[in-house]
């Protein structure tokens, strides 16, 4: 591996950051799609030159961009995300029925082995798939038509499919996470979906055993241990060792277990990273000190990582799609903040440097390992 590329989506465009394997010196290229929100960009694992980007604005809606040359040039592709059939209603914030309406793509997940196949997680919560490199999109309606769909409701940021995980050991198995519904798993390639929220508890819901309605912020899986999932929930850091069938809390000694992203070290499925945030109403790190917390034991025991991160007067947030890892050894860990900084560590998180400091608010960070 000779290079690492970061795809950074922001409130006002996209940026591409590139370094050689030393990860000491970075080039910053952009902005692309100036003035538009870029919720997410992601490259194909099968062809790193193929990248999909979600470009949107309140004025002009959703645009999908595709690059075939690693982000140097872009072309618009299909943006017709029409729900299958008559989508009906879900719950609004006040519990009343609200029509299902497409708002934007939150997350693209390219297929593990086909550059032309890509999944899109959208708001209002649904999953779409394209098999023609983004020209056309078809809903995998079995998710939205899950028996609980009418009871899903938005979190503060909207009601969206924000996490899509393809199981590398089973082509028919995928996981998605929805705010605020929870985790769902398919074992038949996306036709049917089952809720996988047993063990989750959310204090804002009166039923302690509710199987939907949980505001799951992010889930992560290590490809070497696909039955184990880690979750950053609205509150609580959780772990499942049975592919989501049950969850146990591993918040342990974290200073707060509220947060958005969660990531796993590429070289060790027991090493997990979170960024604790003060609370649901105070979206900045406790005491204004930006600390990544690392567990080397698969949760439970956590250590703060502060070297190179601001430890005074830091009042930024790190959003759910804004943290990722590379596959070098030692592992590189990267995250972006709502203050426009992108931080990187090339030694498992022991030391951090600001790769770039004055971008628009960062919405997403994805890592590409380049040959």
């Amino acid at each position, binding site marked *: 591996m000779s290079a690492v590329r970061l795809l950074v989506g922001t409130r006002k465009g996209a940026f591409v950051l590139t370094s050689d394997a030393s990860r000491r010196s970075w080039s910053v290229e952009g902005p692309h799609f100036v*003035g538009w929100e870029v919720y997410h960009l992601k490259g194909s694992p099968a062809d790193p030159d193929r990248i999909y980007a979600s470009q949107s604005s309140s*004025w*002009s*809606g959703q*645009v999908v961009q595709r690059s075939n040359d690693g982000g140097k040039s872009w072309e*618009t592709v299909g943006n017709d995300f029409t729900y299958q059939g008559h989508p009906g209603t879900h719950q609004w914030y006040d519990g009343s029925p609200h029509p299902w309406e497409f708002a934007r793509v939150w997350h693209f997940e390219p297929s593990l082995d086909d550059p032309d196949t890509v999944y899109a997680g959208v708001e209002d919560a649904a999953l779409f798939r394209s098999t023609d490199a983004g020209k056309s999109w078809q809903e995998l309606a079995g998710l939205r038509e899950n028996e609980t769909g009418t009871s899903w409701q938005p979190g503060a940021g909207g009601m969206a499919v924000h996490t899509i995980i393809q199981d590398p050991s089973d082509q028919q198995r995928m996981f998605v996470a929805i705010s605020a519904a929870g985790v769902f798993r398919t074992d038949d390639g996306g036709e049917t979906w089952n809720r996988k929220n047993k063990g989750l508890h959310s204090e804002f819901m009166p039923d302690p055993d509710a199987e939907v309605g949980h505001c799951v912020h992010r889930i992560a899986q290590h490809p070497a241990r696909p039955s184990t999932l880690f979750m950053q929930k609205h509150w609580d850091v959780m772990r499942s060792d049975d592919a989501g069938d049950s969850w146990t809390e591993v918040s342990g000694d974290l200073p707060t277990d509220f947060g958005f992203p969660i990531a796993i070290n590429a070289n060790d499925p027991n090493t997990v990273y979170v960024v604790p945030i003060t609370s649901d109403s105070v979206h900045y790190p406790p005491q204004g000190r930006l600390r990544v917390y690392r567990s080397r034991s698969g949760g439970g025991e956590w250590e703060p990582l502060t070297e190179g991160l601001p430890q005074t007067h830091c009042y930024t947030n790190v959003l759910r799609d804004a943290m990722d890892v590379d596959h070098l050894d030692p592992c590189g860990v990267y995250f972006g903040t709502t203050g426009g900084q992108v931080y990187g560590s090339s030694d498992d998180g022991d030391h951090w440097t600001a790769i770039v400091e004055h971008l628009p608010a960062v919405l997403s960070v994805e890592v590409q390992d380049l040959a």
Partner: protein
Amino acid sequence: MTQQEVTHGVQHDVRVLLPTQLRTLAGVPREVSVSVVGDVTQRSVLDALEASLPSLGGTIRDRATARRRPFIRYFACGEDLSQESPDALLPDAVVSGREPFIVLGAIAGG
């Protein structure tokens, strides 16, 4: 005599002004020209615009409902036509090309 009777089957070259974001997206200058056959309405102009510039599909009108997006406004001849029916005939000055049909991003925010 109504415009509909006048324009039936006739091709009109209609000038359209686009907001900055959409110009950049489509890679076109501020003003473009579209050919409309028959009635010149919001719908026929925007249909022609999207046919010639497919990247604008869904950016002015919602894909699912075909309704004007909430922060988009339409103007022509000094008038706000945003609330007019999409099938209402546009002013003669737009039909003749003397005045453009203006697509505008509404002011929102500080």
